[in-house]
């Protein structure tokens, strides 16, 4: 009898407690958490968040994780269906995985009904937000547009002696390279080990995606792609043009400073600022460091876009990220997150985002004179965003990336595989992965 009474009492109390809790609405959300990698744009986003707090009273915290651990941390949170974040600024290649596994909410209706899709460049909308490609379904708002570009030493390029020597050696004037062949010649010309100077700095790190991103710039421009319309890879990624592209990248690495065998964005900037290289490739997002006092060659640093391939193909490997909403948070937090994205997507906020140093994907801001003249690299960035190209965004991207990194490193850094063998082996492994995943029916 006593037990029955106790059970009744507990149930009654729980009911009262449940009924007394009011329904939570977006207005009741007082803080929002955004996850992003640890780098300068995340600091800029925090400042945007501070502006949002000043305007709405909702505190926005941008939690930063070092790049090397970022994907692992996000993957763990996805596995736990965690609610540690409300929004995430995720890499473009994550979209397929996040969508098919249900980690992001569908933003299509929200973005189209608010006209947001019309405000950003089509390429960024496609690569950062759309899945599957061409479906018109969007899961991220293009936040930080980014791609690979080049920084170079104008003082070396414009030195009369260098100009005369170069023309005498190669038969054409020394200038910003327009083709990969010219870039190779310039890299060779400036490789003067006895003076401690090397022609070029290229990505070589094989931890995550660096060497693949660097190589892609040549790969795409040489008319290659990671698979054809039917997801076929055999004879696609190892065709002669792609082998030629890999041979060129390997040759470029031979003009790089010793010790850049494990190089990514930081190592590129370091090689440039310590005077070791005449040119470096890097994401535009890391060029602000070169336009600061950290760079002793700041005044003579110029920037240029990716050169063209033998048939005129011009592509830049896409970096950057879009902002998505966590599917596991409650409806009130989802709505509050959408409110933030809607506010963030406004043109004046995007303008402020660009002023702070963020790389906006907003069409109007990108094409404005103010933006183009804001920094010495913005014009190159705006031009680059018209020919960006990304790698796989299917859920199997991680499986595909691993053999890609391994074989590229074997061909470029270790020299244990020749370019043809590396691409043949890579194609075989990619084929096996895509067959197993059901993309290719044998």
């Amino acid at each position, binding site marked *: 009898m006593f037990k029955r009474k106790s059970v009744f009492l507990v149930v009654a109390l729980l009911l009262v407690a449940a009924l007394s809790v009011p329904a939570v609405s977006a207005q009741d959300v007082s803080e929002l958490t955004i996850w992003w990698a640890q780098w300068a744009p995340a600091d800029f986003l925090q400042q945007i968040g501070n502006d949002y707090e000043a305007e709405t009273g909702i505190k926005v915290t941008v939690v930063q994780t070092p790049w090397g651990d970022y*994907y*692992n941390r996000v*993957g763990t949170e*996805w*596995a736990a*269906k965690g609610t540690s974040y409300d929004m995430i600024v995720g890499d473009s290649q994550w979209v397929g*995985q996040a969508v098919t*596994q*249900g980690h992001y909410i569908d933003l299509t209706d929200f973005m189209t009904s608010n006209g947001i899709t019309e405000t950003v460049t089509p390429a960024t909308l496609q690569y950062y937000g759309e899945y599957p490609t061409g479906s018109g379904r969007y899961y991220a708002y293009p936040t930080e547009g980014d791609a690979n570009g080049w920084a170079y030493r104008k003082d070396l390029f414009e030195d009369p002696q260098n100009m005369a020597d170069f023309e005498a050696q190669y038969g054409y004037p020394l200038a910003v390279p327009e083709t990969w062949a010219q870039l190779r010649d310039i890299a060779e010309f400036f490789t003067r*080990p*006895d003076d401690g100077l090397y022609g070029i700095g290229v990505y070589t*790190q*094989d*931890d*995550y995606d660096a060497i693949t991103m660097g190589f892609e710039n040549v790969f795409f421009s040489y008319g290659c792609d990671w698979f054809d319309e039917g997801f076929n890879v055999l004879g696609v990624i190892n065709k002669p043009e792609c082998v030629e592209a890999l041979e060129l990248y390997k040759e470029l690495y031979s003009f790089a*400073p*010793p*010790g850049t*065998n*494990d190089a990514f964005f930081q190592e590129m900037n370091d090689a440039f600022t310590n005077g*070791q290289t005449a040119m470096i490739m890097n994401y535009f997002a890391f060029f602000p460091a070169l336009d600061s006092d950290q760079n002793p060659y700041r005044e003579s640093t110029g920037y240029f876009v990716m050169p063209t391939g033998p048939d005129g193909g011009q592509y830049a490997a896409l970096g950057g990220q879009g902002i998505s909403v966590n599917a596991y948070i409650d409806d009130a937090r989802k709505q509050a997150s959408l409110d933030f994205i809607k506010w963030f997507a406004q043109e004046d906020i995007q303008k402020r985002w660009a002023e702070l140093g963020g790389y906006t994907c907003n069409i109007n801001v990108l094409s404005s004179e103010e933006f183009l003249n804001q920094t010495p690299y913005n014009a190159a960035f705006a031009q680059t965003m018209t020919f960006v190209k990304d790698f796989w965004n299917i859920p199997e*991207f*991680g*499986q595909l*990336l*691993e053999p890609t990194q*391994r*074989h590229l*490193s*074997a061909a470029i*850094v*270790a*020299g*244990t*595989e020749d370019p043809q063998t590396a691409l043949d082996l890579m194609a075989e492994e990619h084929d096996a992965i895509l067959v197993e995943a059901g993309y290719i029916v044998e």
Partner: protein
Amino acid sequence: VSQTSTEITGVQSPTVSGQQVRRRQLSDVRIIQLFILPTIILLIVMNIFPLIYSLYLSFTNYSVIADQAPEWVGLQNYQNILSDQRFWQNFATTGRYALISVVLQTAIGFGMALLLRSKFKGSGLITTLILVPMMLSPIVVANFWKLIFNPSLGIFNYLLGYTNINTSPEWLADPNLALWAIIIVDVWMWSPFVMLLCLAGLSAIPEYLYEAAAIDRASAWFQFRRITLPQVMPLLLIAVLFRTIEAFKQFDLVQGLTGGGPSDITETVSIRLYKLAFQGQYDTGTSSALAYIILVIIIAVSNLYIRSLNKARGS
């Protein structure tokens, strides 16, 4: 005292008093249980359950980030691992690394212990300084050595006599040198550990054994072979056992120095396991199977050592 006790107990009935005493005084068995229980619970939650659960996962195609239940695949993951040439290459790399590294650490550690055995002015300070590397975080050590090995900025090549960076070896990029670079760092870091254990063993050898040997005009080599080595052997074997297990599951140093590269030249099984379990792949089923294979190998190697250790103790 006796009277007072009688008065107190006399207030209550004998039955009630007995129950209260039982309540207030815990039996020895109960106390033991209370102390052990939290440890047992922790052990079950933190060790036993994950161990059994990961064993189950090793027979499934589970991916921790996929929103799908594990699907039973039987021995498929084990078959895939054992029939994959790359996994054997990973095991070969690990074996080569562990063997060379442990042999060098043992030789250098034992050698240093013999040198530091006799006390001299400043020997305490020198011993402490030698022990510093093993107290550092492996990832910090890896980052420092990455700079030391750098052909442009590092001092390593310079100390070897290479003054022209164009002809200097690129330790972390050269496929023939990268594993050696990791071994050098591992030996630098962990030889002091072997030295420490050997020093403990050496200091426990009774002096009269050497005195007796000296009276018998035994040579230094004979004394080393018949007195020093057998006496130190149990502790030396323990050091070797620890270092072998550590070398076999070495992760942080390799990850920090080369990340398994260039390509997969220095990819040990632990690095491969990490790449499979995380790094965009999240192949939880296969990585669990690989973890179990590593566990079995470590247990087998440990058993061999423990047998040798027992034999050494027995003799």
